[in-house]
């Protein structure tokens, strides 16, 4: 059961990623990104991280995606302003050639770990309690820094959006 779910979810996720790579229209790419993100949330649940599963759904499928779709809507992108992107097999090939060693290195390195089956843990592993205990003790400084970063991003977004046209 878990194996079947893993295969289905990862296939969906990779198909969504491939859609981002190959769809020409930004809206289609964004929709395929949503598919990828939701399948990824399912994989989080399969790894028994229930809290991160919810965060992924609320924050990505909720907030970020809505923001993206609004931006596409506001921009009102016409066919004529889309860049000319005939598929570049050469760039794609060189990219695959450069990325393959990284992928192989990571998979081989993790392959040296002793095999452990990642079944769904009963109990509260991955719940908000354990995560919060770690977050507010050992990781409290990065957490506060993230809040400052979010404030900076908010101010930056407002300033960029209010900028008058120059020239």
């Amino acid at each position: 059961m878990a194996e079947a779910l893993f295969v289905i979810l990862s296939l969906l996720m990779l198909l969504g990623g491939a859609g981002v790579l190959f769809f020409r229209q930004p809206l289609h790419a964004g929709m395929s990104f949503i598919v990828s993100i939701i399948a990824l949330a399912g994989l989080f649940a399969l790894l028994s991280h229930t809290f991160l599963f919810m965060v992924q759904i609320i924050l990505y499928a909720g907030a970020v995606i809505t923001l993206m779709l609004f931006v596409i809507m506001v921009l009102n992108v016409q066919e004529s302003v889309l860049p000319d992107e005939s598929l570049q097999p050469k760039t794609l090939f060189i990219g695959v050639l450069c990325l393959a060693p990284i992928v192989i290195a990571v998979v081989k390195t993790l392959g040296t770990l002793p095999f452990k089956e990642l079944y769904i843990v009963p109990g509260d592993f991955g719940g908000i309690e354990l995560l919060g205990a770690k977050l507010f003790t050992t990781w409290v400084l990065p957490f506060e820094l993230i809040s400052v970063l979010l404030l900076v991003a908010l101010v930056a977004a407002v300033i960029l959006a209010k900028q008058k046209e120059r020239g």
Partner: protein
Amino acid sequence: MIGVQAYALVAMLLFSLGALAVVTRKNIFVIYLGIELMLNALNLLLIALSRYHMGMESGVMALLIIGVAAAEAAVFLSLIVTLYRQRKTLDVDNLRITAGEEA
């Protein structure tokens, strides 16, 4: 029988798709989506490792990465809107502001 290796393979494949989108596409919006895909692939890898070690540290890291990604989304999208208003294009080849060559 799914080990951490299967998750690592899937995560790295997703990372490659995102990186390829950044490298090969010219649409700035799709480049943003590629960056998000890479961040999410790293999150999957971190969470698989967290489950493997039965510890929450990587889970906390993944949560912080989600926070960074949210901040990045806000800045990047408002940047896209500003650039589109000024230049009327999504083509990154036309956005060479710093290259000293006004496109």
